[in-house]
């Protein structure tokens, strides 16, 4: 008998577009990003997005183990998305399931286009995304964190990869779906882009969208990602900001 039973809210959105957490369709949940939270990793970041708590760490460029995976002309990129056993209401069994394996792959493929892999022949860059608390949109939150961790590790990149999910609830296209919308909404479309070149590096969709809905979702995704990107840039600069004092008088 499960201790936690998920209950579908009576309705996911009102006729005026008010969502179960009180947001309007184009409102994002609060975001916090912090860079350099771990001591041992070459780069790290922590992202709070709604109820999500995501830790990302980057190791490398470093020597490849096992050796036979070495690529002579460029860096090998590996990514692991992992959910902590205590990240969900019901305890998750530790270790990768099929979903995590797929997400590890799409996260790697979302970040790899941004990395100058040819700068690091024979090396590996390992990216770890640890979901400590999950609240819908963990993969996009993870990409945002991992992208920051890569940048803070000093990995040469074409640009930051920013990500956000777009959902559909009935007639409404909504930005940054919450837990209820993720569970019971009609569609979910996670996206990631390199904002400087507007290249899409992650695009998945689940649930149906008409041609118009899809176009609307894509456009909303771009706006949301632009928003997230600005937060990322600020988080990355924050530790290195100019500190100034006037004339100091010591007694």
């Amino acid at each position, binding site marked *: 008998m499960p201790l936690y039973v998920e209950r579908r809210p009576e309705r996911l959105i009102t006729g005026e577009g008010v969502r179960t957490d009180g947001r309007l369709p184009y409102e994002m949940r609060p975001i916090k990003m912090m860079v350099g939270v771990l001591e041992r990793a070459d780069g790290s970041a922590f992202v709070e997005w709604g109820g999500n708590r995501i830790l990302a760490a980057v190791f490398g460029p470093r020597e490849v183990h096992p050796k036979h995976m070495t690529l002579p002309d460029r860096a090998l990129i590996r990514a692991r998305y992992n959910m902590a056993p205590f990240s969900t209401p019901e305890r998750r069994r530790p270790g990768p399931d*099929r979903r995590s*394996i797929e997400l*590890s792959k799409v996260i790697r493929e979302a970040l790899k286009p941004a990395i100058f892999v040819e700068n690091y022949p024979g090396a590996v860059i390992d990216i770890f995304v640890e979901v400590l608390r999950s609240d819908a949109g963990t993969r996009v939150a993870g990409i945002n964190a991992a992208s920051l961790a890569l940048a803070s590790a000093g990995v040469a990149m074409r640009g930051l990869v920013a990500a956000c999910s777009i959902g559909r609830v009935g007639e409404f296209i909504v930005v940054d779906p919450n837990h209820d919308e993720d569970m019971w909404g009609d569609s979910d479309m996670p996206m990631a882009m390199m904002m400087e*070149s507007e290249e899409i590096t*992650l695009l*998945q969709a689940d*649930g149906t969208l008409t*041609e118009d809905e899809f176009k609307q979702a*894509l456009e909303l995704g771009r706006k949301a990602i632009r928003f997230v990107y600005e937060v990322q840039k600020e988080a990355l600069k924050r530790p290195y900001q100019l500190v100034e004092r006037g004339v100091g008088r010591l007694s």
Partner: protein
Amino acid sequence: MMFDQEILTHNLMKEYIRDLIEKGQRLDGRGLYDYRPIEVLSGTFTKAEGESWLRLGETQVLVGVKADLGEPFPDTPDKGVFVSNVELLPVASPTFEPGPPDEGAIELARIVDRAIRSADAIDLSSLVISPGKLVYMLFLDMYVLDYDGNLEDSLTLASLIALGRTEIPEVELKENGELEVRETKRRLELRDIPINFTFVKIGNRMLLDPTKEEEGVCDASITIAINGEGKVCSIQKKHGTFKMDEILNMMSVARAKWSELAEIVRGAI
């Protein structure tokens, strides 16, 4: 690392393919948006409740749907169970190795599964015998026999055909709780035909139904599922990057192609 096709495609061949594509041509003479010939083999090859052996050019796949009885998942007591799995057999390519499904196989299974589920192609609530207690479980097992690219679309087509052909034994739950399996069979209803369309980008060109050589040289790849109403029902961008207008263009191509492929599925069922 099955899609790291650089091992398979010679550098000279890569350049040649890229040069051709730049001129709008393909190695096998196809147009950019043409599928290779699709053939559904006739005959019985398995003990499955529904099956299909499909060839897409030189790619060959065999899909079997097995049915069983079991308990539903606790969070969906009023739905049958539908499980998808892909096995990349070592016979299909010199680079496939035996072992548990790797990330490529898992992703493939999930791409097919997501298209079918999103389109509600199978009415899972029709698979309930006793809510919360007993349901039909359908296992969609996809076998890759011969790999020449575009497993996404070939497996989806073969799966739809196999599901459309599936006949499961009827059962009756008697009042005393006993279960009677009847001689009669019921046909699984395929309510929609969600088709996966896989495109790769080579240079600035998009092409449909890539061969393994084209997959090997491509700069980006994506699979888009379109259902009978022309709706998008799943997307999976794989490696590389796309621009927004490129995605919208591919979507229009996919929409225009849907009926051609749906006809093949219907014809084979």
